């Protein structure tokens, strides 16, 4: 994984330092930056140095600002995680009821509407949805600010107002994918023989739905939601830019613009790391809620 991230920087067709400095620079500045970044060393040694430092949390220094990459990421990470979690909440709030209702009343009006809406939701670019949300809620209606960020501790209401639109923009897409999944997963669970067994025992319908349908449908859902949370992050990158949300996405985007490779390298590595951690957590959670795995 880290090899892949590292090799990214070396796929570049030029000298990162030269690209970073632009057209006007002195040989001294060039050499100094090159040496400071360790780019005058052989490739393998560069990788080992970088990987060795990365393990200890040292991801190098930004070409542009001179700050350490770790501190830059540290500043931005909370905002990104906040947005990702808020988006996940939005996604689940959409997907769970819609998917469940569709599954309980297949081919009904609500099912058809849910199918169409989720199909559209999957097809809408999140950045366009962001723009449309700004147009409607900030422009036409004037209810919410069009972007920006204030810390929760300073202005809780302002924080929430600025969180809502980006969270919806990111959440709708994932919500659409999850809706489809909830529906198929519920339908499958509903068709299981043990549901009929429970009904035959005279268990009230609501209890049957909770314990014998939902409980079982949730198992695969945990995996899908985890995967979606990870994919949500890539949606966050683009949406952060539209809403001027000061998260990792903006940092990475800025790094791309500035050709600030240590920062880009660091943020991509961090995204990959978050991705891995989420997958790990999903596996752990899954083994906790599925007795067939937990007891083995």
């Amino acid at each position, binding site marked *: 994984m880290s090899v892949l991230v590292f090799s*990214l920087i070396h796929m*570049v067709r030029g000298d990162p330092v030269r690209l970073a400095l632009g057209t006007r620079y002195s040989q001294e500045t060039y050499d100094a930056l090159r040496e400071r970044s360790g780019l005058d060393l052989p490739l393998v040694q560069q990788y080992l140095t970088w990987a060795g430092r990365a393990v200890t949390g040292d991801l190098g220094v930004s070409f542009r600002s001179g700050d350490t990459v770790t501190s830059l990421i540290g500043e931005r990470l909370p905002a990104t995680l906040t947005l990702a979690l808020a988006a996940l909440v939005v996604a689940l709030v959409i997907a769970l009821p819609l998917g469940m209702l569709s599954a309980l009343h297949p081919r009904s009006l609500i099912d058809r509407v849910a199918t169409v809406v989720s199909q559209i939701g999957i097809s809408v670019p999140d950045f366009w949805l962001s723009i*449309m949300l700004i147009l409607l809620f900030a422009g036409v209606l004037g209810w919410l600010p069009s972007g920006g960020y204030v810390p929760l501790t300073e202005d809780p209401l302002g924080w929430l107002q600025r969180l809502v639109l980006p969270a919806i923009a990111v959440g709708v897409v994932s919500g659409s994918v999850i809706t489809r999944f909830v529906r198929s997963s519920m339908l499958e669970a509903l068709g299981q023989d043990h549901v009929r067994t429970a009904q035959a025992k005279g268990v009230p319908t609501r209890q049957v739905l909770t314990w014998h349908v939902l409980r079982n449908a949730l198992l695969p859902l945990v995996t899908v939601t985890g995967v979606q949370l990870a994919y949500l992050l*890539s949606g966050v990158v*683009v949406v952060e830019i539209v809403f001027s949300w000061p998260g990792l996405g903006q940092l990475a985007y800025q790094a791309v613009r500035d050709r600030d490779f240590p920062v*880009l390298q660091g943020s991509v590595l961090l*995204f990959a790391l978050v991705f*891995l951690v989420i*997958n790990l957590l999903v596996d752990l959670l899954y083994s906790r809620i599925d007795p067939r795995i937990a007891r083995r």
Partner: protein
Amino acid sequence: MTQLPAPGATPAAPPPAEPLPTTTPARPRWRETLGLLARNPTAAVSATVLVLIVLVAVFDETLAPYGPNEQDPSLQLQPPSRDHPFGTDEFGRDVFSRVILGAGTSLRVGFLSVAFALVVGTLIGLVAGYYGRWVDDTLMRLMDVLFAFPAVLLAIAIVAIRGAGPANAILAIGIVYVPIFARVTRASVLGVREEVYVRASRSVGASDWRLITRHVLPNAAPPIIVQTSVSLAFAVLAEAALSFLGLGPRRPNPSWGLMLADGRGFIEQAWWYAVFPGLAIVVTVLCFNLLGDGLRDVLDPRQRTLMAGGGR
């Protein structure tokens, strides 16, 4: 203990004769497939719309009422009118014409990147599934690593490193979807590898290449076709995202993503500027997705294809 005839104990038909080694397995029947698709209204409509979009992209210069960079300074940011159905942008260019001319960019990048992913991914999947063992392990492990990155992010990173531009966008989006095709193909290959007719062919000394083209590929085709349609949807989306971030075609080339990026700045004054290119993206992507769903129902009832959201 005595038993009544158990289920299915009625005299069994004689086991079907093993096909002769030379017979090919049932191929997907194209005419029948098309017929089934035609009876699936959503799929039929989306296929028709897609054909229209492709036609528009091919004949864009004939169809567009204005040139891509034909400016009229007196008509800056004009709302939709008879002369300019989608309005005009900040240079007085016709948004309608630019949406038409942008179709080519989006589709070209979409098709070429999926073609790249299709060829490379299918080859990797074939080799991995067919030869198995360490080849399989190595290739699929590599695919897993690649698959572990969020798609758009990986594409952004690749383009960021290699430089902006359509060629790199194609490569970046292509690389992102390679693992999906590799997985789908590999699964299909594993499914047919041990089938009687493949073993039979092998026993009479058919070459690997012949086996792959005559037996394995036709069987792997349905899920690959479905995956192609779904991937096209996401490739068009990814292209738009890259263009939006300024990592695709350069200005003043007409591109949906770029138009959105520019229109975003005028959203308060000129809603049409950002709305219509976005709608073009939504319609195109939606059609590829719906067609993919329809194809899945017809070609792949056992749902071997990865979930629709797999690439996002």
